[in-house]
């Protein structure tokens, strides 16, 4: 009959109208600047650099300035200069680490390729700036965030990373101890010794870097 459909429609909207006052399921709007949505753990947005010692954020960066991420970055928004001492010896830490987040597309490839778990994805999305050149070019001071912050963002992933790093450290310590011992067993520590920069375990990840570029 003509009109019944109209009444059904009216009932739906009336339910919504009344429900919005007492039923949180029907009133899902967040009042944004005051209330923010709880982001899912896997949400990602722009990379940051992890440091281990909150007292020395720049000195304790995990980054060794290997520039793998710089070469892998598809839009080429990362710029790294390795720190060197007076004699020109590499110090295995970045002197300059800039990310232009106006170029960055949050693809996470830098995170995938990093053998040291030094760069991770942030969840910070309020990035509006009044200066589009300086404001959007983040230096290592701005990028450096503590491990605790990382734990806060991605607890599961961070725990796994921590466990892995601890394991590596233990292995390294064991290897050192074995080296120090007179009855040395060369074959086992030989692999880590062959290529100094990456510690032994990431060698599993080592073949990965060449593959990421998309076809």
């Amino acid at each position, binding site marked *: *009959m003509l009109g019944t459909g*109209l009444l059904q*429609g009216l009932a739906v909207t009336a339910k919504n*109208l009344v429900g919005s006052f007492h039923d949180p399921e*029907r*009133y899902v*709007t967040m*009042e944004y600047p005051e209330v923010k949505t709880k982001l899912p753990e896997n949400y990602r947005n722009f990379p940051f650099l992890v440091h281990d010692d909150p007292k020395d954020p720049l000195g304790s960066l995990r980054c060794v300035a290997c520039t793998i991420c710089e070469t892998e970055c598809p839009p080429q928004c990362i710029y790294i200069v390795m720190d060197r001492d007076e004699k020109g010896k590499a110090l295995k830490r970045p002197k300059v680490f800039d990310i232009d987040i106006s170029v960055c597309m949050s693809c996470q490839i830098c995170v995938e390729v990093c053998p040291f778990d030094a760069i991770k994805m942030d969840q910070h999305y309020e990035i509006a700036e009044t200066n589009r050149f300086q404001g959007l070019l983040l230096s290592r001071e701005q990028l450096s965030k503590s491990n605790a912050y990382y734990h806060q963002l991605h607890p599961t992933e961070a725990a796994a990373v921590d466990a892995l790093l601890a394991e590596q450290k233990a292995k390294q310590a064991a290897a050192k101890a074995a080296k120090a011992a007179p009855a040395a067993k060369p074959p086992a520590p030989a692999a880590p010794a062959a290529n100094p920069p990456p510690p032994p375990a990431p060698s599993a990840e080592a073949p990965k870097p060449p593959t990421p570029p998309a076809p």
Partner: protein
Amino acid sequence: MSLPGQLSVLFPLASGLGASSPLAAVLPASDSALERLPLTLRGLLTGWLPASWQWLANSLIAIVVLIVAFASLFALLTLAERKILGRVQNRPGPNRAPLPFLNLRTYGLAQPVADGVKMLTKEDIVPDGADRVLHFLAPIALLAFSILTLAVIPYGRLLVALDLDASVLFFFAAGAATELAVFMAGWASRNKYSLLAAMRALAQLISYELPLLLSVVPVVLMAGSLSTSVIVERQGEWWLGFLPRWYVFTPWGLAGFLVFFVASLAESNRSPFDLPEAESELIAGHLTEYSGFKYALFFMAEYFGMCALCGMAVTLFLGGWQAPLPFLSFIPSYLWFAGKLLALLGVFMWIRASFPRLRIDQLTRLAWKFLVPLALINLGTTAFWSLTADWAGLLQPLRWLIAAGLIAGPFLLLGRNLSKGLGPRTYRYAA
């Protein structure tokens, strides 16, 4: 004889505003002090004036009160509408505009003020080569005619600004004149799309004027008067001592009310009939070339027209200022009227939140093939109803049954005809 007294003799219409209207007529002693409160207040204001000037002062007060009351109602309605639409769509609606200097949010109550300031400070653009005079006159004419329609509605037992003998006719005469303003707006903009939209708007307004008027005729027939205050008086009795005898509680009254309601939705350009200024499809129809305060005036006129049509619906079908139950009549009549008016405006907003917009062909088909025939049939039913007024006893239920059948049958037939070929859609490629 002083000038205003002379004027009042010369212009019977003007004198109707004051001295001879119920506003100043002898007050029935039975009315409570609360009921007479507006009159008492007015008496305090104008009582000291000489008698010949009093009607002039009284009419001015009536005009000012009407305009101020409905302008503030307009401000609140814009806010309430957005709030209700928001709630229906699971969001809070405007709730941020703070009170000036206080930084208090007060649930967005300051939003109308903010909107007004925004509208006032916008640039007033008149297109190059447009007809400046008509472009300027159109919003004013529209607003003036909408305000005129507010004059004849009885807001309370003692509150009619203009108690005419033919006030229903006055209402529709003033309402018909708004079409002219719509045309002026469209034509003066010198924009072919504005003009086309104005023509569409006119087609819609003219089409729906017919069912609107035809659905009023039964009420006039039953009440035996064109005067709104008499029509309300006639609805003041009770069935069985406690059920209100409003016209909406009869078969013909219900049908008439529904036709009137749908037609008034279209007549006030409200969704789902808001084709003339469909914001999401046309830019704003005949208002495309308007900006700033002129645009705000158009919206004000639209809301005034909506209030006037709702007030007329309340007056004609919902018992006007009558209380719904006998023991509730201690509440002053104007509060009852305000309550009914607000409830009806709420339904307008509810409908806006619920239904999608009609296409122009659907719109005119609904008017000509459904509402007009139904209103005509309703007129016949009302004639039957008035002829069988003396049926008593067992014949009374029979009378109700026949009248209901006379309306329900054509309703079903017309409805089936209207929705022929519009069954539930089947989608070939959708899951």
